[in-house]
């Protein structure tokens, strides 16, 4: 049987939970990030141990393999430099043409590198934690990306860490456009039956949209958070929904969300 002090403990816990659930979203978010910060020393320790392990593994790699790797990276570096020079020239030309047409000049992206230090432990949400926060200039709703494409957006931010909601989570809708045709739609949630979470649903496409497997999908820039032109994925297949009013497609994400390590936060 429960004794009186036990009843008081249970009532205290129940009231505490109800108060937490009834708090406004921003207050709840601040308390959550404060509580999550308690885990920061452990995340830091784990990262240090992982780095030490990586260094120890690197020291075991033969010298010839490392030399071959360096040569390969140097070649890639030269190729990328040439591409950057070409892109710079195209950018200057674009700026000149924009100026002639009276369009405002496009500002270059400011990117902040960040490490993924943890993942959402719940099975039905898709999110990661980054080792950057307000102290590093990060605020909510900033896009997070990798060279392969869009990762998600910053959902909550604390002084030293932030939580990112990944593309494929139902709480991370992305306004996208199809390459070639320019038809727009919204990527929202993981496609039903896909356990790995690599496939997402692209909905609200016009019935007349041209859809081909392998067609690339980019951010449209119309949603207010993500700039246009970031790769989201490729069309896998499509079907007609809503009594023939809309088309829906499955899209394979460009970024492997299961192996995220270094990502970039696009600062305002």
């Amino acid at each position: 049987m429960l004794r009186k002090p036990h009843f008081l403990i249970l009532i205290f816990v129940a009231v505490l939970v109800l108060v937490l659930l009834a708090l406004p979203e921003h207050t709840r978010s601040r308390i959550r990030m404060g509580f999550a910060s308690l885990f920061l020393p452990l995340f830091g320790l784990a990262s240090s141990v992982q780095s030490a392990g990586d260094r120890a593994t690197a020291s075991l790699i033969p010298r010839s393999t490392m030399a071959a790797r360096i040569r390969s990276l140097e070649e890639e570096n030269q190729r990328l430099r040439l591409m950057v020079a070409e892109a710079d020239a195209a950018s200057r030309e674009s700026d000149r043409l924009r100026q002639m047409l009276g369009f405002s000049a496009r500002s270059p992206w400011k990117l902040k590198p960040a490490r993924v230090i943890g993942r959402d432990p719940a099975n039905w949400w898709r999110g990661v934690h980054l080792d950057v926060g307000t102290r590093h200039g990060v605020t909510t709703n900033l896009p997070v990306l990798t060279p392969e494409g869009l990762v998600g957006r910053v959902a909550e931010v604390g002084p030293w860490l932030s939580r990112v909601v990944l593309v494929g989570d139902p709480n991370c809708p992305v306004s996208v456009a199809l390459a070639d045709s320019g038809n727009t739609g919204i990527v929202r949630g993981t496609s039903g039956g896909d356990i790995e979470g690599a496939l997402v649903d692209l909905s609200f496409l016009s019935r007349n949209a041209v859809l081909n497997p392998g067609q690339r999908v980019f951010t449209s820039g119309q949603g207010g958070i993500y700039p246009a032109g970031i790769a989201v994925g490729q069309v896998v297949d499509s079907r007609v929904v809503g009594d023939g009013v809309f088309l829906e497609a499955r899209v394979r994400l460009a970024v492997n969300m299961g192996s995220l390590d270094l990502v970039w936060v696009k600062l305002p």
Partner: protein
Amino acid sequence: MNWVHPTALLLTTFLVVFLQGWLSGFRGFMAAQPDFVPGLVVYSALSSSLPTTAATALLGGLGMDALSAGPFGLSVLPLMSLGVVLHLRRDLLLRDSTWAQAALGGASAVAVMVISLLLLFVLWPLLWDKTMAPEYFPEGRQGLVSLPEVGPGVIWQVTVVALGGAIGTPILFRWFGWVVAACQYPVVPQPTIRQDREIKRGRS
């Protein structure tokens, strides 16, 4: 040393929550994440007092919610309910049997997962802040704006969670058995007949 047991329990809870957030290899391999916090609550309910069980459920639930996108505090309720029910029925449970520990761990992990999901759906109108979710600007929505999508993949997730709980809970029982044995004075078995109190017969 009464403080050893609750302290070890709370520290282990903190560590388990951290490991579930940090280790992503298992999820990458199995496409689902096992939950060991219900196993800790099972151990606590069967082996310690109700305040310690409440503290374990509170720390475990808030820790999981702090690292998750779910509503902060929601996971405490199923963990706490599990702890109270098991604590009140602990005289009827075979806490020393490995099979009983595994069955309790698996069932508890699934029960906590299902109750959390049900609570999320039931409390959704209270949790959804409509002022922060304008329909016309989908990307700009803040906080929780959509419920999790429950599809066929949930069956696989429930299976992994059940197996994780069934395997993890007996390990937790062994771990705490070892910690308690290492931190407390060994119990000296008392003979039923004390030599110093024995009546010596005959002439001395």
